[in-house]
């Protein structure tokens, strides 16, 4: 069903057939009347020291993928294999040891730092939790070093979060994640809430940190510019499923899925010669509680034909990746039997 994994060594993180559904309760007895299929069979792989970008519209389930990997929400099914160990099979106590190796940077730098704590305590919290550092003074020294690493003034570690700007707070959030020396950092829309100029600074910082510390990133975003700048590989998500994945440049140059093409066409250009064409993907994402039959994208696809409405396409291999679209089916050859749009 899915494309063969990369021929190279075992990736640091491999997500297989991840399914995270949220129950919908209703009525007097709060019976389950349906499921929100936030994540519905997702496969991902993040190589050690590499960056995978997970791209999609709001509500496509990309944040839930991140939360499921961290087990902040419990998935129904699937495997999250980190460094050869399936995290889903671990007890909460056993999971704790792996939490040190997978950290997260959140989108909103206002909500991700406890307003009642000094930033020193915020950054040191993980060290305390995992017993890193020999004591209070040592941890304080480490917090100072982390502040230098994320290009903040180490003299400011005793301040409160509200005394920092948005970009500075995001650096504090990164310092908190780095404090426990993780191998994988999940960046959940980590730059989306920032000004463009600050975004660039944070992205550069993340890239430098990756080079220095050998971090792997799972970069969850809706911003394709960020993807191209940072990611080695990209996975495009739509309604809880991966619709296309591949090496970043290949996907940007030769998108195989109509949804990816629509996303790329929607990126505004600064070049007046390349004015944005009219949008190709119209309307809103259908409810993940009631996904359309057949191909989930057929309700909005500009290239829809009869088969799409009846049959759900698997992930077909394309040159450097995979796409969940009958048009990419190598055995079908040229798309025959296509109905008009």
């Amino acid at each position, binding site marked *: 069903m899915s494309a063969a994994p990369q021929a190279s060594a075992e990736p640091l993180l491999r997500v297989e057939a991840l399914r995270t559904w949220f129950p919908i309760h209703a009525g007097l007895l709060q019976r389950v009347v349906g499921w929100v299929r936030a994540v519905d069979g997702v496969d991902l792989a993040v190589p050690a020291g590499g960056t995978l970008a997970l791209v999609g519209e709001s509500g496509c389930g990309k944040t839930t993928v991140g*939360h499921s990997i*961290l087990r*902040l929400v419990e998935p129904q099914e699937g495997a999250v294999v980190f460094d050869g160990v399936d995290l889903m099979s671990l007890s909460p106590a056993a999971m*704790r040891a792996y*939490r*040190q190796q*997978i*950290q*997260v940077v*959140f*989108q*909103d730098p206002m*909500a*991700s*730092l*406890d*307003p*009642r*704590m000094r930033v020193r305590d*915020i950054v040191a*919290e*993980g060290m305390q*939790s*995992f017993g890193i550092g020999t004591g209070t003074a040592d941890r304080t020294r480490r917090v100072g070093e982390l502040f230098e690493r994320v290009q903040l003034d180490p003299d400011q570690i005793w301040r*409160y979060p*509200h005394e920092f700007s948005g970009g500075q707070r995001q650096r504090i*959030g990164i310092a*908190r994640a780095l404090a*426990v020396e993780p191998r994988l950092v999940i960046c959940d829309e980590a730059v989306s809430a920032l000004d463009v100029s600050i975004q660039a600074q944070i992205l550069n910082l993340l890239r430098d940190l990756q080079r220095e510390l050998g971090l792997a990133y799972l970069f969850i975003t809706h911003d394709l510019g960020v993807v191209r700048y940072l990611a080695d590989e990209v996975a495009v998500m739509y309604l809880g499923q991966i619709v296309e994945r591949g090496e970043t440049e290949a996907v940007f140059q030769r998108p195989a899925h109509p949804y990816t093409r629509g996303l790329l066409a929607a990126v505004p250009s600064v070049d007046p010669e390349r004015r944005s064409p009219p949008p190709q993907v119209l309307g809103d994402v259908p409810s993940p509680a009631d996904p359309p039959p057949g191909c989930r994208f057929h309700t909005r696809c500009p290239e829809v034909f009869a088969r799409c409405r009846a049959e759900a396409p698997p992930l077909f291999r394309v040159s450097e990746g995979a796409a969940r679209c009958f048009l990419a089916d190598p055995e079908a050859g040229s798309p025959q039997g296509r109905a008009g749009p």
Partner: protein
Amino acid sequence: MEPHVISNVVVVLVLLAGFGIAAFVRRNRMWNDALRELWRRRPVAIVVVAIYAGVALLDSAAWMGGVESGEDVVAAHEAKSVLDRLFLGTQEKSYSAPFADAEFYGGADLAHPGSHPFGTDILGRDVLYLTLKGARVALLIGGLTSLIAIPLALLLGVSAGYFGGRLDDAVFFLISTLASIPGLLLLIALIMVMGQSTFSVCIALGVTSWVGLSRVTRGETLKLRELDYVKAARALGVSQLRILVRHILPNLMHLVIITFVLMFSGLVLSEAILSWLGIGVDGSWGQMIDQARDELTRSPIIWWNILASGTALFGLLLAVNFVGDALRDILDPRTLRDQP
């Protein structure tokens, strides 16, 4: 243990707690700023509350001896507070009007003419003295009840909000059930069952007043639980208990303080209502007001008793409410000045 010894221990504890809180506030910039702002906005109300508290403390520190055995031999062997000692030898025989030289009915000469700014009551006790003594009762009711109600409300509200599921259902069922029983009815029933004492009145008030705060803390915890910094703490492997203590509770504290201050005045008022029904606490302003019912039907009427106790009650409640409203403005996150 003698009651006055317990009372003295409480005074020491209250003072120690006061110093502890002051030390904490001095080190914590956020609370320091909040209290400075409060002082800037409501200096008079704070001074008024402080005066009430000071009077209550004066009436709480008590010891034996040092009293000349006068006409009342029994009284000479009771522990006397600082306040009692200040008003020693002001006893008259019956009613006298403020600053009067003679008794109100009959016109017999007073033992201490012109020395009773609020007159004397039916037993000849100085009304100013009784009114000041009421401050201790009022603060005791408000304080002790809050000590019972707030931990209960926090424990149930926060754990229901944080852990959810069956626990949440159970707590919410309890809250809804309690909220659907008329408060006064439940109060009277509880006091009837437990017997009438200061402590049982406080327990009864505590049982009926935790519901509001519990609801508020449950809702706020539901919100905080989903915030990114709580998720970050979970991703960092921080234990549930530690998350509750370090992240949830500190971010609820402003609500607890606002609710405490506003609840406080409600509790003092509730006691006055209970006294009116004859099941209040001895020596409270409510009891003085209750006694004044008969005095108001006399001719000529005795008006100074209800005026003094009513004014004292009104003054405390007004000041506390002023402080509470200002605190709400200052501490409410939606109006926090330091939010960009």
